[in-house]
């Protein structure tokens, strides 16, 4: 059980109309790993992440989460998904943090965090509130417990979004450019929170343009371009000497 990969994706294909966005993407991720996904705009990074937790459906390929099959290709080459309840059960093990936070604006910070544990897991308020408060303390926002999202800065919103995802006790956290919508001076507080999560051995798949974060926190880097994984190496190696000309060109551009 422990050495089953957390995520095992093989040969993912995805197209939007005639636009082939994923052309056979594969990834294996083990427990506690932090992987940074980088690459130029439009290369399919978000789509890849969103396919893993069923926000998009794949056309072909196989996705396994902790050994459970979410989707697989049938004999006709078409992806088939597990029954709906099973899909829901599997996807619940993955938390996700979005570029634009997607907090619920009609709920306070605390309500945002306890909503899913109560509605989805059926937890009692008494059981979840202390946990939610502990999570808020962890992301440094205890003082904002009863504020509405409209009152928060972007960095604070994103930290609430992280706490909200963690309240469901996911085994894997997916991040899609969590700092890209933030003013530069606010990215630090979010990256600190993520770094702390990584130190606690959370399994994290992070699409990011923050090369510093990728270099220092990620174990592995995946470089995507035009719907394919062009290069996949330990972070230190990748940044020291990117092998593929396209990764090199991309890094030169970034730094």
């Amino acid at each position, binding site marked *: 059980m422990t050495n089953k990969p957390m995520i095992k994706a093989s040969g993912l294909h995805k197209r939007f109309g005639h636009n082939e966005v994923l052309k056979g993407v594969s990834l294996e991720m083990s427990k506690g790993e932090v992987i940074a996904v980088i690459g130029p705009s439009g290369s399919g990074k978000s789509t890849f992440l969103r396919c893993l*937790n*069923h*926000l998009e459906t794949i056309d072909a390929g196989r996705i396994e989460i902790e050994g459970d099959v979410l989707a697989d290709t049938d004999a006709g080459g078409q992806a088939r998904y597990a029954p709906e309840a099973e899909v*829901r059960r599997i*996807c*619940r093990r*993955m*938390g*996700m943090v*979005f570029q*634009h*936070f*997607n*907090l*619920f*604006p*009609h*709920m*306070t910070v605390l309500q945002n965090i306890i*909503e*899913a544990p109560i*509605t*989805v*897991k059926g937890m009692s308020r008494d059981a979840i509130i202390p946990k939610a408060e502990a999570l808020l303390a962890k992301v440094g926002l205890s003082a904002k417990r009863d504020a*509405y*999202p*409209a*009152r928060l800065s972007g960095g604070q919103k994103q930290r609430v979004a992280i706490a*909200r*995802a963690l309240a*469901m006790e996911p085994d894997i956290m997916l991040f899609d450019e969590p700092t890209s919508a933030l003013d530069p001076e606010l990215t630090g507080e979010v990256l600190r929170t993520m770094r702390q999560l990584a130190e606690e051995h959370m399994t994290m798949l992070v699409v990011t343009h923050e090369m510093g974060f990728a270099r220092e926190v990620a174990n592995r880097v995946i470089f995507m371009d035009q719907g394919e994984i062009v290069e996949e190496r330990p972070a230190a190696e990748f940044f020291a000497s990117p092998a593929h000309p396209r990764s090199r060109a991309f890094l030169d551009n970034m730094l």
Partner: protein
Amino acid sequence: MDYILRILPQLIDGAGITIQVFLITLVLAVPLGLALALGRISRWPAVSVAVNGYIWLMRGTPLMLQMLFIYFALPFVPGIGIRLPDFPAAIVAFVLNYAAYFAEIFRAGIQSIDRGQYEGAKVLGLTYAQTMRRIVLPQMIRRILPPVSNETITLVKDTSLIYVLAMNDLLRAARGIVQRDFTTSPFVVAAAFYLLMTLLLTWGFQYLEKRYAAHDE
């Protein structure tokens, strides 16, 4: 002044009918409209096409025609042939008609909610029904309050259409007295009643808008 006090009881009786039609229509048309709105955005094409056709029919023909049809023509429609008394006939027509208008308001409200809200809910494990109930509808309500307020005020005045079914609503009561006493002051009193009702509604909706606005700053 004495005269007005004298005709007041009759007018109040009429206002009673008007208020009944108004309240019953509102209480029934809002949930039906919500159901229609959900049907309209349903992923089953058959459902959304059927609801679309219904809304087109109800908004595309006069309410008065619909009321006359239900009261006078429905008894003769083969296979249906229900004869409704005037009050229920009026209510059925109003509910069916207003539900169509509410449905369009609700649909626009639901569709104005950002896709990110659905995705945020989905990745937390909420089902579609939970997402609607907990996330989408509460946000939708705030946005649709102004158009719903409009529609509700229109309903107050539309209730006077039951006049054609010879029911003694506020307007008909006023007209009866006008014809009897050769004075137009009952119309003025009736107008005052309508104005009072719409004023109360306006205040009510203003209060709701304020309450629901609490969370954006």
